[in-house]
């Protein structure tokens, strides 16, 4: 465990150290102003001394992320399953899905506020809107990737559309779903930060905007670091979930 854990995380650590080192060196050499580019050391120390405020805001953002992404999962599954069961629905809904992704936030934000106020809801909806699309496309194409023969075999066993779906199409889609999940969950965090522009009292997005107005680039970057850590943790969590839900999908890859 311990040696394999080392070899697993070493590259990421080396990468991070090289990057941070280069950044620190550049800042030291160039004497660039801290409000333009603070040193990583300064980001770390200042971030640490403001950990309470950053923490509070991070919790708010994390809440939006998780609730929004959970909602997004429900929406994506529902729609993808519906679309899988009906070619008619697929052709009717797919263009709408694409359209839904083209509405810019400046158009959407006021509508969201008008309809849902400033609570959790509009932010949750925005996160869902940003992330349901990769999930839905991943699922739809995952279901469709089912081998024709496999579905036909089930049918010959007397399986209803629903059972064919459950026993073949669903498991076939899972590997692609997890690919899409990784894309979606990464966007969920930025989506939440972004949704805060649609009106929020706190959250990392608001915190960053305020600190930027105060010329506190170091604190802005400290918040970015927190965001990145949250994202990476969620990203890694998808592998854990995959190992439990669809162990066969990764067997292959682990061998490499």
């Amino acid at each position: 465990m311990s040696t394999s854990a080392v070899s697993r995380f070493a590259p990421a650590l080396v990468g991070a150290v090289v990057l941070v080192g280069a950044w620190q060196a550049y800042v030291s050499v160039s004497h660039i102003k801290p409000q333009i580019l603070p040193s990583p050391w300064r980001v770390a120390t200042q971030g640490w001394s403001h950990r309470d405020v950053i923490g509070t805001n991070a919790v708010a953002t994390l809440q939006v992320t998780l609730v929004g992404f959970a909602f997004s999962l429900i929406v994506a599954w529902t729609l993808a399953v519906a679309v899988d069961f009906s070619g008619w629905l697929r052709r009717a809904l797919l263009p709408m899905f694409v359209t839904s992704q083209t509405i810019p936030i400046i158009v959407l934000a006021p509508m969201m506020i008008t309809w849902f106020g400033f609570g959790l809801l509009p932010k949750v909806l925005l996160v869902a809107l940003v992330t349901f699309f990769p999930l839905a496309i991943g699922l739809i194409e995952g279901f469709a990737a089912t081998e024709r023969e496999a579905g036909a075999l089930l049918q010959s066993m007397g399986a209803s559309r629903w059972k064919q779906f459950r026993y073949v199409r669903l498991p076939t889609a899972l590997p692609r779903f997890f690919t899409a999940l990784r894309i979606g969950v990464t966007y969920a965090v930025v989506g939440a930060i972004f949704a805060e522009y649609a009106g929020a009292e706190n959250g990392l997005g608001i915190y960053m905007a305020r600190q930027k107005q105060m010329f506190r680039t170091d604190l802005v970057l400290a918040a970015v670091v927190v965001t990145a850590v949250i994202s990476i943790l969620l990203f890694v969590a998808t592998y854990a979930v995959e190992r439990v839900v669809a162990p066969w999908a990764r067997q292959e890859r682990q061998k490499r």
Partner: protein
Amino acid sequence: DNGTTDATKIRFALDWTPNTNHTGLFVAMREGFFKDAGLDVEVLPYNTASPDTLIDAGNAEFGVSFQSSATFAKAAGADVVSVLAPLQHWATGIGVRADRTDLSSPKTLDGKTYAGFGDAGEVETLKQVIRNDGGTGDFKNVTLGTSAYEAVYDGQADFTVPYFAWEGIEAEHHGTPFKYFHYSDFGFPDAYAIIIDGSEKWLKDHPEEARKFVQALQKGYQLAADDPSKGAQDLLDANPGAFTDEALVRESQKMLAEKYMKDSTGRVGNQTLDQWTGYSRFLFQRGVLTDGSGKALTTEPDWSTYFTNEYLSGQ
């Protein structure tokens, strides 16, 4: 920059989409004031980076700012200094929907929702105004930026800060007028609603060009103040397709020219230490100004270094 043969390139950053706060700039461009001075001025499009940030990072030479933002920026060590004040007073106030009878004075805003811009100093200002009126100054602050006005129109938020001559007129045109609480009515110091910030370093390195630029810009604003309909026309012409409500532009320019642009002598652009001290000292005393390392300022800055009239045309 070698401005000897070619026209000197000057980048100018905007605080918002083009509006009548910018008229002087577009007049100077349309009327060829910059070209006559041998300057090549590029207007940087409005974006999410604030003009003070752009100037400080060397990505713009000048930009539109506000006294509050500029004070915060300079306290934090940013390379900015105010060179011209297009508007001589607050041109904003607390705006609530005119039909909100429950909101009769600042103190009634306690516990209400502010549709804000995430701007440095805005919350401190509002708090103080409310307190001066006898309130507690506790309200909900929702950062909305461009969506702030809609939020107030449709009642999701209770108050915001409109520019009288822009969102104010716009609101009337659309049948949802604001009523205002003016800061000065509640014992709050006057301030420059809009200023032009420049890079101190660039100014020092290019004194000639700096003078030419600021004076050409001043000439533009002066023309807009003296002949608002011409000013409005230049603004419209410089931004084809940008304004769908031309009447708004003309009315707004007229209002600014009449009430906000000129000082007592009829001149445009001048700044005084008194006015700078009034509002900026308030920010200092509230303890919200911080230095470059994030520590609250303990000694009051010399406000005369925050602005300069040096580049304006002689009296």
